């Protein structure tokens, strides 16, 4: 049988998964960690510690602000050095809590044993409260606070829970390794999420280029009730929420709508693993798995890193030279963000760090549009990027809004497919910025 996929658009490219067979390695603790107060979508958290305070691993150091926000916990034990501005992932100075690491002392209520807890004791309210308290956010990249996603408004009904193990981005393998190494935890995590959402059926979407993960998941999913593994055809951007829902259930999220409008909730497997740890082990979100990849073949691997570790610390740990690196990207090649320097700390949403050689770091010179409509063919949202680009150049943002530019998921397929190398995505982003400004 042919594997499922979404209908409209999408691109096929070489996945470059160099690190897919590399087991996750634990890293040595750094001397200092720099924990940003804004690692999620929404308002920055408010710090609750002061200079000189002693903290343990898992101590709450910043409380969620009202509205869209999430708690932040200390990822190390030590002394709060100061709260200062440092360059973060956004490219701008962000408020960060800087902690000097002293030993590795965990909070008492965290279960640090490696034994798997199978029995789910908590009820729905307790699970949602633990998710909120542990500061869990979507770990696929957007960083939407999970407790808000699971607390969908009254009157909406959730039918399916979808675990996102697609990982359609190039280079990244952190979800793949997690599924291979921590399959039991993920499956229990799915059961917890199902209980929290009150749904009977869950799917795990995995792309066909991860046969090991698919076979392991299929083997163990039989032991659990109502979990089905769905192998998917390899196509970008299948990991996008809306595309994944269409691929698995055949339902289309309406324009401007949320997945809950079609009765689905999607979570990344990394998030599900964090939910498992929060609910069964009382462990807040303080570390994550991060893939190091790119052109430099010496700096490869999957690492378990504490939130707030600087990228330079990990590279020093590998004792590798970084000469000739022209670009550092946080995330995947398609949706990732270029960083200013190696001194940027890891956040909850950073799934990978890609080092690009100088010769590949620059975009090619763009030329005129030849009306080939490649961008229209590949747009998974059914937009017309060439038209949006023309409108953006004229400054006609009102018309861009009528052409549904707000539905753009910023996957970058259009820019990838364009033979004239026109920065189509940039123009769409500009339109979105201008329309949001006007509101």
């Amino acid at each position: 049988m042919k594997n499922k996929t979404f209908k409209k658009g999408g691109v096929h490219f070489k996945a470059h998964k160099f690190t897919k067979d590399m087991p996750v390695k634990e890293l040595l603790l750094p001397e200092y960690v720099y924990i940003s107060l804004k690692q999620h979508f929404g308002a920055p958290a408010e710090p609750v510690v002061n200079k000189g305070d002693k903290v343990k691993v898992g101590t709450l150091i910043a409380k969620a602000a009202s509205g869209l926000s999430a708690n932040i916990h200390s990822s190390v034990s030590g002394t709060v050095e100061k709260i200062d501005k440092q360059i973060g992932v956004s490219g701008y100075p962000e408020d960060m809590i800087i902690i000097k690491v002293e030993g590795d002392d965990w909070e008492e209520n965290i279960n640090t044993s490696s034994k798997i807890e199978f029995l789910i004791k908590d009820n729905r309210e307790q699970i949602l409260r633990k998710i909120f308290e542990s500061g869990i956010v979507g770990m696929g990249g957007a960083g939407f606070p999970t407790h808000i996603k699971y607390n969908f408004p009254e009157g909406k009904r959730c039918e399916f829970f979808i675990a996102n193990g697609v990982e359609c981005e190039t280079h990244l393998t952190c979800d793949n390794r997690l599924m291979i190494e921590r399959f039991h935890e993920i499956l229990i995590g799915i059961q917890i999420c199902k209980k929290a959402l009150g749904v009977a059926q869950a799917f795990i979407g995995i792309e066909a280029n991860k046969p090991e993960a698919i076979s392991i998941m299929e083997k163990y999913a039989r032991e659990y009730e109502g979990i089905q593994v769905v192998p998917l055809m390899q196509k970008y951007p299948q990991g996008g929420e809306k595309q994944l829902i269409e691929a698995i259930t055949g339902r289309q999220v309406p324009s401007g709508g949320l997945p809950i409008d079609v009765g689905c909730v999607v979570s990344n497997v990394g998030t599900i693993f964090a939910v498992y740890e929060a609910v069964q082990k009382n462990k807040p979100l303080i570390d994550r798995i991060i893939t190091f990849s790119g052109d430099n073949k010496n700096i490869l691997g999957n690492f378990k890193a504490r939130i707030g570790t600087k990228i330079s610390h990990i590279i020093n740990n590998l004792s590798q030279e970084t000469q000739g690196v022209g670009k550092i990207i946080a995330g995947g090649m398609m949706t990732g963000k270029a960083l200013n320097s190696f001194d940027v700390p890891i956040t909850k949403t950073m799934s990978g760090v890609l080092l690009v050689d100088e010769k590949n770091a620059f975009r090619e010179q763009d030329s005129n549009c030849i009306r080939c409509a490649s961008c229209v063919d590949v747009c998974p949202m059914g937009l017309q990027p060439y038209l949006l680009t023309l409108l953006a150049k004229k400054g006609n943002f009102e018309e861009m809004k009528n052409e549904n530019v707000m539905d753009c998921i910023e996957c970058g397929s259009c820019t990838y497919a364009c033979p004239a190398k026109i920065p189509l995505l940039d123009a769409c982003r500009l339109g979105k910025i201008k329309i949001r400004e006007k509101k």
Partner: protein
Amino acid sequence: MTLLITSVLIITIVGLICGLTLYFVSKKFEYKESERVMQILSILPGVNCGGCGYTGCEAFAKALDNSVEADFPHLKCPVAGNKVMMQIADILGYEFAEKEKEIAVIKCNGTIENTIRNNVYNGLKSCALANQTFIGSGACPFGCLGLGDCLRVCNFGAITIDEKKGIPVFNPEKCSACGACIKACPRHLIELRPKNNDMLFVACMNHEKGAVAKKHCKVACIGCGKCTKIDEKIILADNLAYIPNNADFAKNSKELIDCCPSKSIVNLEIMKNEK
């Protein structure tokens, strides 16, 4: 031959009928703009820049026609200047108070020489877009991005980006103070200031602490407060000095320029000669 004559005749007759119909219809339904609006419109510059706050010169002329005398000081065509506004006041029968000519200045002097430029932006040339993710070629999060949103909105060709400087340069002769660039700048660096040679302004918008700001840029305001001791009207807030328009420029001009340790207080002359 007859075919040719008939066709020419038919076309002529049809043309005559259409022409006459149009003539009578236009006579019957003629719309006459009030005399005053036409008069005002004829003396306005007619570039439709929107600097007055209305959609174009015609809308502005109508607004002037409908205005009352108390509103008149707020209605101003920044392009035309005092002479034209005086004529308009004559037409409307209002009193006219002369206003000082203004000019747009950029409050950033982060030229290639003054900053250390490590970062490269490679996307669509748009400040509004770059401002979302890109700190700037240097490391100053408040400085000019140099991608030219201001020069693209300028209707008068008064702004150019100097290749050697990397920041926009304003031509005082061409700038008509319409304010389009002020709205376009995502970092709010452009301000309208009185156009005279004594006028001083702080060519910096950096709110960071002195030591940090100085690291990014040689001419960053470090918020030392020396200038506030010379002129009490100068405001020092959030590590940045601001010289208001009512400061006594003529008296302290030279003293203020000399007192600034980082040379961030400038006048039009200095900005022009800056390399």
